C-alpha cells in the first residue's frame, strides 16, 4: 500500500496504524484511510489512468490495497450512457446513466469487495465473510472463489434460498441464523470481533468502502475529465454517496479535474429513509427505523454513514428525497422502456428521485447530470412481475394478424 499513510477517526481525528479495524479504539468512531496525495499527484495523470487496466484498478494509487496482489474479477469501468430518451421524457438534455448493472456479479458491490478482498489478502486473512441478503453475498463469494480462500456468508434464516443462489453457486459456507434482523446484525458484529476473518463490511470496512470512490472517478473520466453538475445516488448505509463525493474531490486534489461543483442528491426508499428523514427535519442525528420497502438492497434502518452523508449534502448544496414502492416500480419500468436498462429496485429509487428533481426544477435542462444505477433487475424480478402480459393466439397466421391489428388499434 505505497500511498496510504494511516487510518483516521472521523470523529476524534486520531490517527492509527493501517490495520483491519473499523472503529477508533479511543471513541469508537469510524475510521477512514488517509493517503499521501502529494506523492499520488506526482505519479498519477490523465495519461497514466488511460494507460491503466480497463477496470476500476486503473485508479489503483487512490485505493487502499496493493494492486499487484489484487483480487480482480474485472469490476468497474462500466458504461456511462447518454440517456436521450429518458432525458427527453424528463426535460433534461444532458442526462447520463452510470450503468453498474453490468459488473461481474451484477451490482456495484464488486467495486468495494474487490478492494476488501485485496486488503484481506494484503493482511494475510484466509477467510472472507459478510452478512447479506443479496448483492453483497454474491460479490463476496465470487471474489473469495477467485482468490481461492474460504468464504462464510451469514443470512437471516427466514430469507428465501432463491435470494442467495447467486452467492451459493461460488461455494461459500452459508450460515442461516435464527432470530430477528437485529439478532443477526449483532451476532455478525460479535463474530467479526472474535474470529480472525476478514468481514468485508465490518473489520475491513475502511478499505472496502473506498472502492466506491471509483464510481466518482469513472464518471469524471467518462465525461471528459469533469465532475457532473448533479449526481443522484441511491443510499442504504450512505457510504457510497459519501465516497463518490470524496472521489471527485480527490481527483481535484491531485490536479486531474477542476474543483467539483456537483450537487449531490441522495435517493432513498420511503420505507427505509432515515437519512432523508433527517435531511427533511434539518437535523444531523439519524433516527434508526425498521425498514419496510420493496427496495431490499437499500433496507438499512441504522445507516453507518448517515451523518456523513448529511454532511455531504450540506457541503455540496445537494438534496435528499425518498420515493414510495409504487414510484420505484414505475421508475424501473420507465428506465427499461426508454433506455433498455433493467435495473433492480435501487435503480427505481434513483430514477424516481431523478424524476422528482426534474419535476421540481432542481436540475437545469442543460446541466450535466449523472444518475447511478447500481444493480441488475434480474435480481428483483418479483417487483415487476406484472409486466409479463402476453398476447395469446393459436398457431395460425390469421390469429396473429388479428391480434396485432387489435394491439395497434
Amino acid at each position, binding site marked *: 500500500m505505497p500511498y496510504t499513510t494511516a487510518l483516521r477517526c472521523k470523529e476524534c481525528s486520531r490517527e492509527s496504524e493501517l490495520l483491519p479495524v*473499523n472503529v477508533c479504539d479511543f471513541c469508537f468512531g469510524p475510521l477512514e484511510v488517509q493517503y499521501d496525495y502529494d506523492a499520488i499527484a506526482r505519479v498519477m495523470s490523465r495519461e497514466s489512468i488511460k494507460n491503466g487496466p480497463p477496470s476500476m484498478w486503473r485508479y489503483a494509487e487512490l485505493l487502499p490495497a496493493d494492486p499487484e496482489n489484487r483480487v480482480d474479477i474485472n469490476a468497474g469501468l462500466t458504461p456511462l450512457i447518454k440517456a436521450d430518451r429518458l432525458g427527453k421524457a424528463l426535460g433534461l438534455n444532458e442526462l447520463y446513466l452510470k450503468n453498474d448493472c453490468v459488473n461481474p456479479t451484477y451490482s456495484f458491490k464488486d467495486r468495494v469487495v474487490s478492494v476488501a478482498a485485496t486488503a484481506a489478502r494484503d493482511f494475510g486473512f484466509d477467510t472472507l465473510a459478510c452478512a447479506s441478503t*443479496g448483492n453483497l453475498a454474491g460479490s463476496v463469494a465470487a471474489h473469495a472463489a477467485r482468490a481461492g480462500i474460504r468464504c462464510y456468508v451469514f443470512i437471516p434464516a427466514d430469507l428465501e434460498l432463491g435470494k442467495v443462489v447467486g452467492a451459493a453457486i461460488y461455494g461459500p459456507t452459508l450460515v442461516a441464523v435464527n432470530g430477528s434482523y437485529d439478532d443477526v446484525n449483532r451476532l455478525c458484529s460479535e463474530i467479526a470481533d472474535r474470529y480472525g476473518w476478514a468481514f468485508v463490511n465490518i473489520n475491513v470496512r475502511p478499505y472496502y468502502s473506498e472502492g466506491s470512490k471509483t464510481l466518482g472517478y469513472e464518471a469524471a473520466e467518462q465525461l471528459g475529465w469533469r465532475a457532473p453538475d448533479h449526481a443522484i445516488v441511491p443510499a442504504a*448505509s450512505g457510504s457510497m454517496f459519501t465516497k463518490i463525493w470524496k472521489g471527485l474531490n480527490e481527483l481535484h486534489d491531485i490536479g486531474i479535474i477542476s474543483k467539483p461543483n456537483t450537487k449531490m442528491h441522495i435517493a432513498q426508499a420511503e420505507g427505509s429513509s432515515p437519512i432523508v428523514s433527517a435531511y427533511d427535519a434539518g437535523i444531523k442525528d439519524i433516527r434508526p427505523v425498521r425498514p419496510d420497502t420493496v427496495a431490499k438492497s437499500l433496507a438499512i434502518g441504522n445507516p453507518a454513514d448517515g451523518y456523513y452523508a448529511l454532511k455531504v449534502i450540506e457541503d455540496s448544496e445537494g438534496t435528499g428525497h425518498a420515493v414510495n414502492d409504487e414510484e420505484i416500480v414505475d421508475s424501473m419500468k420507465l428506465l427499461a422502456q426508454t433506455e433498455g436498462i433493467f435495473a433492480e429496485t435501487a435503480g427505481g429509487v434513483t430514477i424516481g428521485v431523478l424524476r422528482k428533481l426534474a419535476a421540481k426544477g432542481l436540475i437545469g435542462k442543460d446541466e450535466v447530470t449523472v444518475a447511478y444505477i447500481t444493480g441488475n433487475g434480474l435480481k428483483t424480478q418479483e417487483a415487476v412481475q406484472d409486466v409479463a402480459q402476453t398476447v395469446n393466439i393459436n398457431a395460425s397466421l390469421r390469429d396473429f394478424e388479428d391480434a396485432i391489428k387489435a394491439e395497434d388499434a
Partner: protein
Amino acid sequence: MAKVRVRFTFASELIQEPIIWSLGREFELVTNIRRANVEEDQGWVVLELEGAQDEVDRGISWVTSKGVRVDPVPGDVIEG
C-alpha cells in the same frame, strides 16, 4: 470474558432514566461510555460492555426490554 461495543438509542421518555447505572448494578457488567449525544426527542450512547458472554446477552436483553434500541457500533452490518 466478552467485550461488546454497542450503541443505545433512547426515546425521549427514557432519557432521564438511569438505565446504564442500573445495567451495571443488576448485571455483572462493566460499562464504559465513549461517546454520547442528547437531543430534544432522542439520545444515544456509544459504550463498551465487558463481562461474561451470558451476562452481556442478559444485560442487552434487559436494556432492550426497557425500550432502548441496541445496535452494533458500526451500524447495520447486514447489507443487501
